[in-house]
């Protein structure tokens, strides 16, 4: 099944391959890294040698080890934020779509968060609660759910009138069971887009925050590597930027591009199952589909 999704789509394949490779490298960082990234292991600002394939930074830390561990930290933030944000998007979207009483306050909150400019908000929040990697995950995860909460809610509203839901309720299923067993599967087609977009957003924004000085000084991610490099006033006087700035920057671009290719690929791949039109007018515009569905429907007994 997974093979079908990306068949004939080179972009999606390339993106998936790069991502898998990066994840493997990140997972194996403790094995692959030649030194402890936190300890000085050579002379400061040393050019690449056989002992230090990517040279060392201003305090003599091995840059290859930092790069490997940095990928691990960046990916971890990406995965955790994606889990948190996706969970929230779906909970809010389904709740607001099914229980109409909750819709007004939840959608007001969604609108408020959508109206705020992201970077200044994250800056203030992370500065106030303290720049640790956990707080960055919390801030990004707790504030990045609104866009998809609205999309999920729209999908829930489109599915709300379906007969199979009515049937489930009539058979005595609790509202929670209806929501989880019968409604949730209908919204899962939105999941790949959400995961890919949030992963990209999280890696992107964690690096940006770290670059602006809001990274965890103890954690070591691609963003903090760049931040330390740019903190050095002598960075561009020598050649050190070649081995200091060049490894982490393209790595972030590569991950972001890979997720983008994957997202675009998934978007253009025809879905395996025919999708349900989102609303009544769209359904009416597809008479064939409507006719088929009508014929499949059991005749009401009188």
């Amino acid at each position: 099944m997974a093979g079908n999704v990306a068949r004939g789509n080179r972009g999606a394949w390339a993106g998936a391959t790069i991502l898998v490779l990066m994840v493997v490298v990140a997972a194996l960082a403790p094995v692959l890294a030649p030194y402890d990234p936190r300890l000085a292991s050579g002379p400061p600002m040393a050019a690449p040698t056989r002992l230090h394939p990517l040279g060392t930074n201003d305090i003599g830390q091995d840059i290859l080890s930092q790069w490997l561990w940095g990928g691990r930290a960046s990916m971890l933030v990406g995965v955790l934020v994606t889990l948190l944000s996706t969970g929230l998007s779906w909970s809010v979207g389904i709740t607001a779509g099914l229980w109409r009483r909750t819709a007004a306050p939840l959608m007001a909150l969604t609108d408020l968060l959508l109206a705020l400019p992201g970077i200044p908000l994250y800056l203030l929040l992370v500065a106030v609660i303290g720049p640790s990697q956990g707080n960055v995950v919390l801030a990004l995860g707790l504030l990045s759910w609104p866009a998809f909460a609205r999309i999920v809610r729209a999908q829930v509203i489109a599915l709300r009138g379906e007969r199979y839901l009515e049937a489930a309720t009539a058979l005595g299923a609790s509202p929670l069971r209806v929501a989880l067993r019968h409604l949730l599967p209908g919204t899962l087609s939105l999941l790949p887009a959400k995961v890919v977009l949030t992963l990209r957003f999280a890696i992107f924004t964690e690096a940006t925050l770290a670059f602006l000085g809001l990274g965890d000084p103890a954690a070591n991610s691609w963003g903090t590597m760049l931040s330390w490099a740019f903190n050095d006033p002598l960075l561009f006087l020598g050649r050190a930027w070649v081995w200091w700035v060049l490894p982490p920057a393209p790595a972030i671009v590569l991950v972001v591009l890979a997720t983008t290719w994957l997202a675009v690929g998934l978007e253009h791949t025809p879905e395996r199952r025919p999708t349900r039109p989102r609303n009544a007018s769209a359904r009416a515009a597809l008479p064939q589909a409507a006719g088929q569905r009508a014929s499949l429907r059991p005749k009401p007994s009188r």
Partner: protein
Amino acid sequence: MAWLLARYTGLANILVLLNFALPRLLPGDPLDVDSAEGMNAAVSTLTAEARAQLRATYHLDQPLTGQFWAYLQDLGHGDLGWSISQSAPVSQLIGERLPWTLALMLTALIIAGVGGTLLGLVSAWRGGRLDRLIVSTASGLAAIPEFLVAIALLLSFAVGLGWFPLHGGRSVFAPGPPGSAGPLGTFGDIAWHLTLPALTLVLAATASFVLLTRGMVQAILTAPYLTTARAKGLAEPAVALRHAFPNALLPVLTLFGLRVGQVLGGAIVVERVFAVPGLGLLAFEAIRARDYPVLQAIFLLSSLGVLLVNLAADLAYRWLEPRRGG
């Protein structure tokens, strides 16, 4: 219309409330000796009298409602607090830095908006290979975070080729006494310094304009009124610009409002890379010094600014498209 204004007023009120509440939601008391730590350790050396005086200065001796009232009054006077690290009123610091950020953002938004819509129009109109080239370049560039675009431009055009300055908003070691270059020379110097930062923002913001305009124009390519325009003998560029373009412009207006927040975030990052003395660099300095009043003021002003631009875009939309009503 009334509903729209009420919505934006409500949002603005929530922002002000949020800005007031955020530092007060945190545990601890800035003047409590037991919870003082790190830089605040100096608190323990204060006499009880001095502490009471500090409490009165920051209205901390009043109940929450009194604090909020004092906060609103200060805000009404344009008093945004006192910068701890720079020992200056926050409003003064922001006044000094705001023009740089505004100049960067405006330049970038105008170039990206105008250039992006025109590229989108050409892309949809001509189609074929040119279309694919424009779309893939634009979406590729949009996928790269601003600070990496900035670093790439800095490395290639400032470090490598040396065509542009490495950092700053104007030349520090300009020949001759300050101001001797004349207004035109000063302007040229600033423009030279701001080229790469503005280019970064343009590259990041153009894609959404291209894609939106392209989509809008593609949707009306076969509209009967375009056939009419051609039938009465108009040249192709006139058909595109006079008859197709205006109909694609309305959503671009909304997009303009939506992009402001993102361009602002981009400007903050880009200023750090190029050390442009704008709000972004101020924010960066404030982060390093944990200067919360400055960060709060930057957040409040930028979010109110973004709200205002979106309100303007919404109003303009209603004015240009009466069918949407209001």
